[in-house]
């Protein structure tokens, strides 16, 4: 039957001799292992079918590609691409928006915690 992948993906692992086109030489199974665990977590079988995983990977890559292109269009108006552009794109989708703000604030918190940890290490170093 027909190949379930879109036209943008190819199975060939091309060497570096070709000039880079718009992501037409994507390797297969980049996210395969992670996707298997993820699909189980979301309700699939403990061992999802390989063709299902391949199809989901194709769909996700297509989704990320379209989102990135749209974000680039938005970002080009103000200069460079930033996180704000992605947040603008998902503004209508509340669960995703809330999750992203939560991820970003956690990332900030971790960064602050690491900085505080390093400052403490320095203090300990000077004391001894």
């Amino acid at each position: 039957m027909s190949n379930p992948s879109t036209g943008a993906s190819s199975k060939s692992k091309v060497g570096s001799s070709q000039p880079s086109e718009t992501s037409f030489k994507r390797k297969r199974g980049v996210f395969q292992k992670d996707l298997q665990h993820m699909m189980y977590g979301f309700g699939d079988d403990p061992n999802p079918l390989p063709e299902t995983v391949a199809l989901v990977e194709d769909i996700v890559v297509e989704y990320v590609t379209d989102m990135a292109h749209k974000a680039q269009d938005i970002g080009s108006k103000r200069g460079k691409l930033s996180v704000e552009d992605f947040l603008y794109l998902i503004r209508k989708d509340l669960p995703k928006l809330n999750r992203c703000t939560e991820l970003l604030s956690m990332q900030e918190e971790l960064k602050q915690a690491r900085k505080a940890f390093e400052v403490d290490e320095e203090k300990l170093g000077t004391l001894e």
Partner: protein
Amino acid sequence: MSRYESFRRSALQRSNMRRLLVSITGSQKISLPMTIVVCGIAKMFVGELVEKARIVMTERKESGPIRPCHIREAYRRLKLEGKVPKRSVQRLFGPLLMSSSFEGRYIFTETFSPLSKKSCTC
């Protein structure tokens, strides 16, 4: 319990996502928060796909592992709900409706996409 553990701990690798974003945008300046955000969005998208595929399966009264036809049907329904960004690239299968300077997007529906199958063929 292990399903919940898989749900919480599973994630797309940031390095792979960063590589993908660099190849899409052509720019090397992909910040770490951007990678994190896109990984989070993609994970939630996978969740929507799998959950909808399960709903499709219960409608068809099937059981077992999810098959590609369920995913395709789930993807089609998500597109109808507007949760999937539409491709703004014109498919040149008909007369060009707009000039290049027009900013708005007349989007041709993807009638030739292999994902838009009407019946389950597997």
